[in-house]
């Protein structure tokens, strides 16, 4: 299956498959949004403002997961010198960056009616902003350096350094006193979010993930084509 991501194979990825994923995404989002905005209950404390959670949490999840992928891809690239993973990372980065931005904006919109402020410099929020900066640095590196190898090396280092921020983001609410509340969904304990809210949250998360995959596949195809074209030009 991994062979399908090799530059030679990905170009043959049919547009029909991407169209299928797109239709699937629309379907899942329709169910998710109807469930999130209308069918799910209001929270006993927050009322209807809890519904921002259905966008905020999936965005945060993808922002973190995507950067973890950048980190892993960079390690594979630096140590094992697997070249095409850097093209995959380059394709994935803008997706994670946008979702990090959406996470911060929706979080701010959620914070004002609940906490009473648009922003605080607590560990969780600050580290998320740092993540966004790392994303921007990563993307700009690829844009700024026209030499592929140089851009590759520097962006890989940025991704690995930024990956140290990931456990800080995730555990900031456990390690230190923060305004942001601790995680409701963990691997070790039962979720502290009622199932009538958890189900639409998971539906929205799946929708966001498949959407990200679509964008990634489209971008990755283009990056491979650009790369091959540049190679031809040089020879």
């Amino acid at each position, binding site marked *: 299956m991994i062979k399908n991501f090799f530059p030679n194979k990905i170009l043959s990825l049919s547009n029909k498959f991407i169209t299928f994923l797109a239709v699937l995404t629309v379907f899942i989002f329709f169910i998710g949004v109807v469930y999130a905005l209308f069918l799910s209950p209001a929270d006993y*404390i*927050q009322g209807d403002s809890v519904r921002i*959670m259905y966008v905020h949490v999936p965005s945060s999840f993808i922002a973190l997961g995507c950067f973890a992928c950048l980190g892993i891809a960079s390690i594979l690239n630096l*140590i094992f010198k697997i070249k095409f993973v850097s093209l995959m990372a380059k394709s994935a980065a803008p997706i994670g960056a946008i979702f990090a931005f959406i996470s911060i904006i929706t979080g701010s919109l959620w914070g004002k009616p609940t906490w*009473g*402020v648009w922003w605080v410099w607590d560990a969780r929020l600050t580290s998320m902003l740092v993540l966004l900066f790392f994303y921007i640095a990563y993307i700009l590196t690829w844009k700024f350096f026209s030499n592929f190898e140089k851009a590759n090396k520097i962006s890989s280092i940025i991704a690995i350094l930024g990956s140290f921020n990931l456990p800080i983001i995730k555990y900031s609410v456990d390690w230190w006193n923060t*305004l942001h509340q601790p995680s409701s969904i963990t691997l070790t304990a039962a979720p*502290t979010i009622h199932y009538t*809210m958890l189900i639409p949250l998971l539906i929205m998360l799946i929708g966001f993930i498949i959407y990200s995959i679509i964008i990634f596949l489209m971008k990755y195809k283009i990056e491979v084509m650009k790369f091959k074209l540049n190679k031809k030009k040089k020879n």
Partner: protein
Amino acid sequence: MLSKKVKLRFFFYTALLVLIGSIIFFIFKSLEENVVYFYSPTDIYKKSSALDLKIIRIGGLVKENSVNKEGSSINFIITDLKNEIIVSYQGIIPNLFSEGKGVIAEGKLKDKKYFIANKILAKHDENYMPPEVKEALEKSN
């Protein structure tokens, strides 16, 4: 399976990662004071003297039956179930501020027991449930 070159690179970068990881760990350990967004009443009880003049934040639960409103000013007690501190505040209170729920007050210490706040933030916990479920839980307790 892995060539010598790859192994060498692997160990080099692993060592680099461990080094960077420990540097960042030590940076955060020494920054602990600033990374913490608020102190608990117990922290205040233990520290106090160094904090008298600075603007700090205290967080905890609003103690039940401790809220007193007089016009635009409000007095209440923040507790972490071990220690408490009296807070007085004038101004707008966030919607989610209520007894038994989390709160963060920003301001200055008058003394070990008394805090004058210029900002109040409501802090909510990680529990999400519909009102009916909450009522059912309270009835069964």
